[in-house]
């Protein structure tokens, strides 16, 4: 076991490395780790933390990967990490192997390290965390919790976290439980002092205060969706618990309780209904929207499968609905706590019969906020379901993004809803008449007018006046009008975002959602290697004309997505009627968020061997 060589020493770096924590879930590590990331955020350094957690309540291995990047790269970098904080004996063998040569393995040396875990190319930093905690705290739960805080204190010394940043977080976190502030500060200080005593020299991985986070906030996509629903005027949230979407409903509840409780009467200007299943949740959403209240649900892949029948009804009966799908790995139960972008096709064509659904693809918490609020306008304007596809990475991890903005001059677009006066003075009301030529009919809400505007909503065929019919021509006219409405839809949807780096338009990259940050980084590193590419980030389906134009303009077009079957590419091929061979897939689907390295390497490999077929990354 004796090392043959002394480990290499990393060149000193400032604000550019990855730290990974290996913990036992349910041990209180999440709040300590979050404190670590937030302190770096408060130091003004771009940071992107990611939970890699099990579908388990207590006792299984869980990881927290924190990337620090002065350059502002917020996607996963990929590869081994510079510093591993190992607090879980179960996963130690795997964790030792995650460290890059010359990197650091921080562990609790209260108990001796298994000699099989000794590598001769990395550095070991042992501190008796258990011993320190047990000597300081008597309560067993405190011993467990403060062990986590102690290692954060130690890291403050080792990599240079500003102690004041940590203190400010403790003060904010326990503002309502001030009794907890002193022991937390004590634990931080203890960790700091013990580390300094044992390892007086800080590591070559150093944090230095910066100014990159001015005007930025740090939050989870799911909370941002919940807040967006409050701002978008949602009053009815019907949902069924499912990872990783649960915190959307929780976010809505948190902000609704803050902003929507009538100060005089104490009544709730919102309703949150925990349904008996996803079928019921979407049924409630459709019922509420049918009756003129803005309503939404949040779910994940299995829920979207269950909601298929109702989504077809809402499409055909033209009832607005907002569904936030926080995607996880499928098929079936898959890996419930791992990320993927694999509900694209089931969402785009949700339900039997000829159906097409409007999709939105946010990339950041800010877009989660904005697009959720906007989704209600779109759904009511188009009288159809809007499915927002986020994913576990965006939804359940904290991300840095620009501050949230709301324009007070903005008013909700309630779409074509006829009032009692309009019904009174208007011509004969036809629920499914295309009066304006845009395929979008007028609708009425129950109880509006004593004599006019009532109709029977149904999933069966009907004529322009909502009367039941089985006449083929009436059915076909209706389906054709729905196609006209579909063609109108992009007018109301967010446009794709083009980043142009090469006016010769040789290489184009299409991406969406959480592949955004990793793609940006990969394209910058590819440009540095001589392969300059333009990219188009798509935010909505049906696609805008710009998507087709981008594909046509470029010699080679890559499509980056996080699933096995190239679902987004399939959608492009199918909807834009383009040659499948004109698109090259960059795929990643192991459940971890896609990394810049995967994208860089896949595109580079393909460019180096242009004759090969679609380059695919199977990792």
């Amino acid at each position, binding site marked *: 076991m004796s090392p043959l060589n002394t480990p290499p020493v990393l060149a000193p770096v400032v604000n550019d490395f990855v730290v990974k924590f290996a913990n036992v879930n349910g041990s209180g590590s999440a709040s300590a780790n979050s404190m670590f990331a937030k302190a770096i955020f408060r130091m003004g350094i771009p940071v992107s933390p990611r939970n890699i957690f099990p579908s388990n309540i207590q006792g299984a291995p869980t990881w927290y990967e924190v990337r620090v990047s002065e350059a502002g790269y917020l996607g996963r970098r990929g590869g081994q990490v510079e510093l591993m904080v190992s607090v879980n004996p179960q996963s130690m063998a795997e964790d030792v192997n995650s460290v890059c040569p010359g990197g650091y393995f921080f562990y609790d040396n209260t108990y001796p390290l298994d000699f099989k875990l000794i590598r001769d190319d990395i550095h070991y930093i042992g501190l008796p965390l258990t011993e320190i905690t047990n000597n300081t705290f008597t309560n067993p739960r405190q011993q467990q919790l403060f062990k986590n805080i102690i290692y954060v204190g130690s890291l403050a010394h080792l990599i240079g976290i500003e102690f004041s940043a940590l203190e400010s977080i403790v003060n904010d976190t326990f503002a309502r439980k001030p009794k907890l502030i002193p022991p937390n500060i004590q634990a931080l200080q203890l960790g700091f002092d013990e580390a300094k005593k044992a390892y007086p020299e800080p590591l070559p991985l150093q944090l230095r205060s910066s100014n990159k986070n001015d005007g930025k906030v740090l939050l989870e996509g799911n909370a941002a969706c919940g807040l967006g629903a409050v701002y978008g005027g949602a009053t009815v949230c019907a949902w069924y618990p499912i990872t990783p979407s649960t915190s959307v409903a929780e976010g809505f509840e948190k902000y609704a309780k803050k902003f929507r409780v009538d100060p005089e009467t104490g009544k709730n200007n919102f309703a949150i209904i925990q349904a008996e299943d996803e079928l019921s949740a979407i049924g409630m959403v459709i019922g509420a929207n049918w009756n003129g*209240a803005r*309503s939404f649900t949040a779910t994940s892949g299995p829920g979207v499968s269950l909601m298929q029948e109702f989504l077809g009804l809402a499409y055909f009966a033209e009832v607005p609905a907002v569904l936030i799908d926080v995607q996880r790995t499928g098929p079936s139960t898959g890996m419930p706590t791992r990320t993927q972008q694999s509900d694209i096709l089931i969402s785009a064509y949700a339900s039997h019969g000829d159906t097409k659904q409007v999709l939105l693809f946010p990339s950041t918490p800010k877009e989660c906020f904005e697009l959720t609020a906007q989704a209600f306008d779109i759904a009511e304007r188009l009288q159809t379901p809007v499915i927002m596809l986020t994913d576990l990475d965006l939804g359940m991890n904290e991300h840095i993004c620009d501050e949230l903005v*709301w324009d007070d001059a903005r008013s909700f677009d309630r779409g074509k809803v006829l009032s009692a006066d309009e019904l009174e003075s208007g011509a004969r009301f036809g629920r499914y008449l295309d009066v304006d030529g845009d395929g979008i009919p007028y609708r009425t809400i129950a109880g509006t007018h004593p004599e006019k505007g009532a109709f029977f909503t149904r999933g069966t065929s009907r004529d322009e006046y909502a009367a039941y019919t089985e006449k083929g021509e009436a059915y076909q006219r209706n389906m054709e009008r729905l196609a006209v409405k579909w063609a109108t839809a992009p007018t109301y949807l967010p446009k794709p975002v083009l980043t142009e780096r090469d006016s010769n338009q040789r290489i184009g990259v299409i991406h969406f959602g959480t592949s955004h940050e990793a793609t940006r980084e990969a394209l910058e590193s590819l440009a540095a290697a001589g392969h300059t590419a333009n990219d188009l980030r798509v935010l909505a389906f049906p696609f805008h004309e710009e998507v087709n134009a981008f594909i046509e303009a470029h010699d080679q077009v890559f499509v980056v997505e996080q699933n096995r079957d190239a679902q987004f590419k399939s959608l492009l091929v199918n909807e834009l009627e383009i040659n499948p061979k004109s698109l090259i897939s960059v795929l990643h689907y192991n459940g971890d968020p896609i990394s810049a390295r995967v994208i860089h390497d896949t595109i580079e490999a393909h460019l180096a061997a242009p004759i090969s077929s679609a380059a695919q990354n199977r990792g």
Partner: protein
Amino acid sequence: MSFYKPSFRHPDSPTNALGLTRKAYEGGISTLCAGCGHDSISAAIIQAVWGLNIEPHRVAKMSGIGCSSKSPNYFLNKAHGFNSVHGRMPSVTTGANVANRDLLYIGVSGDGDTASIGMGQFAHVIRRNLNMTYIVENNGCYGLTKGQDSATADEGTQSKKGKINPFEAIDLVALALELGATFVARSFSGDKQQLVPLLKAAMSHKGFALIDIVSPCVTFNNHPGSTKSYDYTREHVEAGAVVDFVPMAQEITLDQIQGSTQNVTLHNGDSVQLSKLSDNYDPTDRVRAIQTLHEHKAKDRLLTGLIYLEPESENFHDILNIPDTPLNQLDQTTLCPGSDALAQINQGLK
């Protein structure tokens, strides 16, 4: 099936307090089979809503899929209706009802739509005590798919093709009682005298009201050997527990509440005047109601009438603590916190 409805009405047709004749409460022409029990129920609904002086457009007609679920098209043309998907009427009604608490929600379902595919939603809408009238048009079979047994078909009943049903029937009334329903009644489509006051009471109840109505399927389940035929039901029915629905405006005299009748005042002040099954039967006693139901079943009798009523209960609106103003009428000023609040949120996210 009729294909023409005369528009003529007698000029002296009675009007209700709103000055409306029953014609104002009618619907489209039924496409159900001639003699279908469901059409009698539609007529009873028209009579009840008219009699309650409710404006037709203040009603929402909700349904799932099946013969029964088609029937909301055949009453209250001036009300919005929603013929949703199979077995899911309760969830759609829940959303609609939470969005606008001010309408009267009449859900019409069938035994297939409720007791099989919709069993989960039926159970949960009861648990929530949603303020609605839930009508089951119960004929023990699937009509639109040509007569298969449903889950309410009695054990031992014989199908039109001669097959004996080997499965235990689901009794929706017993189930609703177990699940905490606050208004539970059973009736027979052939007994309009009983059905109309029951419907009025159910529609006036502030909470979940179930009326399970045996409504024979003349085409597939009206033969000898069927326990859901007109003949069998008439022979086995035991009417009790309701004689009249008394609006608040009408004074109840002492005579009416003496003898074998009992008066139960509803939340809004209306009353249900009951004829007692026996001296010690109390329809506000859930345990007794369950027992009575089982006693009748053991004797092969079909107990109809108001079986259980809890006049004061916390309904779903109360539980959600939503305002008197319907949620669908709240304006943007009330709903959207605005930019100043967002600036504060941003500060908390740093």
